[in-house]
């Protein structure tokens, strides 16, 4: 039996942009407000992207529109996390993945430096003690 015998119905890709819900563009205004707040009071904020009704296409559009900035941080902590500055400095696209590589949560953070990037004083203390150990072994 040839493949022609099976009635395959090919769908033309839709003419309008597929999957866009129109929910993404208003986020740009919100980000602008949050950036103003950061400048005025230093208050950091975040938008939880999984809490919003965004389609995969919306997210792609948003990421595309915000673009890529100068800094991209990758964090290996129980799966990879990426904290990438967008083309707008101070706006960070934060993606947390689990060990299987699936996205567990996604945020847009508005901060000079995302909280997660900073070292915790307790950890710095541990590191400093380790340094002492290295020195004593010299």
């Amino acid at each position, binding site marked *: 039996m040839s493949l022609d015998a099976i009635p395959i119905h090919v*769908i033309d890709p*839709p003419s309008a942009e*597929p*999957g866009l*819900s*129109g*929910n993404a563009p208003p986020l740009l205004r919100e980000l602008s407000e949050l950036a103003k707040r950061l400048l005025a009071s230093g208050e950091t*904020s*975040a*938008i*939880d992207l*999984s*809490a919003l*009704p*965004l*389609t*995969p296409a919306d997210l792609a559009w948003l990421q595309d529109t915000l673009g890529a900035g100068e800094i991209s941080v990758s*964090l290996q*902590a*129980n*799966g990879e*996390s990426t904290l990438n500055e967008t083309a707008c400095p101070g706006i960070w696209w934060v993606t*947390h993945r*689990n*060990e*299987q590589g*699936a*996205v*567990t*949560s996604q*945020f847009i*953070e508005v901060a000079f430096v995302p*909280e*997660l990037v900073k070292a*915790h004083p*307790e*950890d710095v203390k541990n590191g400093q003690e380790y340094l002492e150990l290295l020195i004593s072994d010299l």
Partner: protein
Amino acid sequence: MQGPLIDTLARQGITRRTFLKYCATLASMMALPPAAGRAMAEAMAAARRPSVIWLPFQECTGCTESITRSHSPTLEGMIFDMISLDYQETLMAAAGHQAEEARHAAMKENAGKYLLVVDGSIPLGRDGAYSCIGGRSNVDILKEAAEGAAAIVAMGSCASYGGIPKANPNPTGAVSVSDIVTNKPIVNIPGCPPIPVVMTGVLAHYLTFGSLPELDEKGRPKAFFGETIHDRCYRRPFYDQGKFAKTFDDEGARMGWCLFELGCKGPVTYNACATVKWNGGTSWPVESGHGCLGCSEPDFWDAGGFYKALSVPADPLRIGAAAAIAGAGAGVAVSFANRAKKNVARQTHETLTVEDLEK
């Protein structure tokens, strides 16, 4: 961020950043504002491990499977590190009299303080003889264990509402935990099975704030059951545009349009599948192309057919606006009498059930 928990985790090679990341994700899943993740991390790091006794009754072990086979063993493992699971028939190494002794010892040592987790419904027919453990009926064991519990978590639809054992004609006389225990705080975590992170979220809340999370009128944590599947569905925009799949293999289905007309119970089902998803965030029923069955609602099994469309748009309060959009597609042929009932319900804030909508 200091305390016994973070020290325990550190010994296992789990760093503060890993914990912070975990708490950020957990807060997101609990629909808490992003900043709450940090507060949770602080509080949980300092928490002490509460004793947990887990009683399996008339159940299929699906709830336990759901928790233990969750996507990130290390993450859910972290939660199990936060509690002292003193009795769980399926998971514990001990068996028989040893196991029962472990339960009694934990109940005695932690009287008034332990968390009791129950999965499965409780049969009352024939004096409870349909389900016994060590020669004692489930109802007997539940009453005894509930006595010293600080709070009870009813895991899954069976423990929460009776579930499938209670489905018509309910041969064993199955009832829910709250039908038997009335003098203790009870959290229902319905779902068939329930979402693992809801369980960990409730535990995290208990550890963070020392209390149970805020519950809705059906005893479910509002953080996870505050909105319907429909409200958080990524296909919702198509519903709003009046784009519906009419069969499971038409163009609409291929384009990923709304499954409302194929019997999706998303509009009347409160759960977090749409945001948390299943199998490690891979997918969830609607994303796989099948409507929601409503498994986290009471009596979902007898709710009139999984493939029968709900006969009115999602939110009766916004019926005017939604009907204008859905008019072309959705089955808005609601009988006049039924519409009158909805008007009454709207005025009295009476909760509509699936049965009301399908009339």
